[in-house]
């Protein structure tokens, strides 16, 4: 199997005149959990959207297995990269099961009937997020945590080796944030899925990620393991935050204590 590595090469992103990411080159390690961190407005989501081919770079390329993703077939790409954007729209009154089925879209032709592989992917995704017994329920009558798990099941059913998530824990309480990140790590460990998320919480990111990408107002500040990235100096540069770093007493990962 070829390594499915997403790579940014001399990537420049922006909206019109405003440049958000300038001349960035980095790789998202395959089969790892990567988190993109940084202050508001530094281009975290923009970068993630560029990796998912939702925006076209002003310069540079994003490559998958060495090929420019903008040259690839749309449906073929959707079988390799899934993205859960912020605030997707739910059709009114849709059930969890019907929502998750839509994750199979890239695998289905215009006339192909619902296949066993489709059914198994959906059942597996529902089970992975613990929503099997709720599949008949309407999405709009679920709690925020359950709703987010249903959306996760949709992108899991897509069955891609790469999974990109834009702030998947926003609006959730701490328990549900932990639950979502544990689910993602489970998927990463079980299926070898490359998981790339944008998060705000540095401590949770350090706890759950193998690889961190820290962006600051001037672009990339640091990338690497949590121990390499989460340092007082890097936090000062990225967030202008004075903080002390201590090992998390539970996981030994670096933990930020703002001063």
């Amino acid at each position, binding site marked *: 199997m070829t390594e499915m590595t997403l790579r940014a090469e001399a990537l420049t992103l922006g909206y019109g005149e405003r440049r958000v990411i300038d001349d960035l080159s980095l790789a998202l390690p395959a089969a790892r959990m990567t988190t993109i961190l940084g202050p508001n407005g530094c281009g975290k989501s923009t970068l993630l959207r560029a990796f998912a081919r939702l925006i076209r770079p002003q310069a540079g390329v994003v490559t998958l297995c060495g090929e420019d993703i903008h040259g690839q077939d*749309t449906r073929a790409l959707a079988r390799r990269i899934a*993205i859960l954007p912020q605030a997707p729209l739910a059709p009114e009154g849709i059930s969890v099961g*019907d929502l998750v089925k839509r994750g199979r879209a890239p695998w289905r032709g215009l006339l192909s009937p619902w296949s066993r592989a489709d059914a198994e992917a959906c059942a597996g995704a529902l089970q992975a997020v613990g929503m099997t017994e709720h599949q008949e329920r309407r999405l709009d009558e679920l709690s925020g945590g359950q709703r987010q798990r249903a959306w996760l099941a949709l992108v899991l059913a897509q069955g891609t080796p790469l999974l990109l998530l834009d702030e998947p824990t926003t609006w959730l309480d701490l328990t549900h944030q932990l639950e979502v990140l544990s689910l993602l790590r489970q998927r990463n460990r079980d299926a070898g899925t490359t998981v790339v998320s944008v998060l705000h919480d540095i401590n949770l990111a350090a706890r759950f990620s193998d690889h961190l990408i820290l962006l600051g107002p001037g672009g990339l500040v640091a990338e690497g393991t949590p121990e390499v990235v989460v340092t007082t100096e890097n936090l000062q540069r990225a967030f202008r935050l004075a903080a002390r770093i201590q090992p998390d007493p539970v996981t030994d990962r670096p933990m930020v204590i703002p001063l």
Partner: protein
Amino acid sequence: MKRWILLALLFAVAVALSLLLGVRHLTPSDVWQAVTAPDPRNPAHVTLLTIRLPRLAGGLIAGAALGLAGTVMQSLTRNPLADPGILGVNAGAALAVVLGALLLGRADNGIVTVLAFPGAALASVAVFLPGGGLSGDAGPVRLTLAGAALNALLISAVSAIVQFRGEALDILRFWIAGSLASAAERPVAAMSLVALCGAVLALAIAPRLEVLSLGGSLARGLGTRPGIVQAQALLAVTALTGAAVAIAGPIGFLGLMVPPLARRVAGHSLRLELAASVALGAAILLLADTAGRLIFPPAEVRAGIMTALLGGPIFILIARRLKPGAQG
């Protein structure tokens, strides 16, 4: 399943009433004999063959087409108030036909009716592009207001043009609020082929429209190209609406009433919803037409007025349920 049976019953009743009731009531045996052993001297047979059957055919095609067009539009725009009548697409088709008839000096029921399609297409583009309706970001209110304004503008233009015609009042009546009364003189057969193409296209792209309704970003992540799906959906709406207007004139509110009912029958599968929309659209239009024949006989209330009488309150009901600032 039970709801599908109810829908089939409703459809059968609508077809039967449309054949049997009118200024002259017929019996089922009249209908049977008229079909199996037609007698040109029997007035009941003549009524059935020359008036009721063409009217039934026109109603089936126009109703089914408008029901489908409404369901495609509402799915495309995530807007429960979207309807070819309310958004001015009907009026665009009507304007193109009357304008063509005036400029070419021809009757408005022959080849000129082909102009209904570019008319419908132009009106769709005019209402969807500036209204921000396709992205669904603008919210239902903005699109509906843009449509109402366009609709009023186009209808005034229709009235202005029709004034130049000799038999102005009758023509005006037809092109302001449609009717099935003249179905026998209208190009039902040709237009049903176009409507069929629109229906096939709508069914084909239904799964992509379902994905598109999850929002543009997620839809692209799932391998659809929103721009192409939107263009295909507008093409389907244009074919369906243009065909319906060419047959029956502009009939509003049918596309508003059908989708919520179709969803109750079919659930969240757009292909099944479209299938239910065919039967519902045809049944509601036939019932509206039949009721219009029975209210003040021998005069008729036009089907387009009946659907508006029914659809107006439903519009208000749906509009009241929208949350302020809802994203559709």
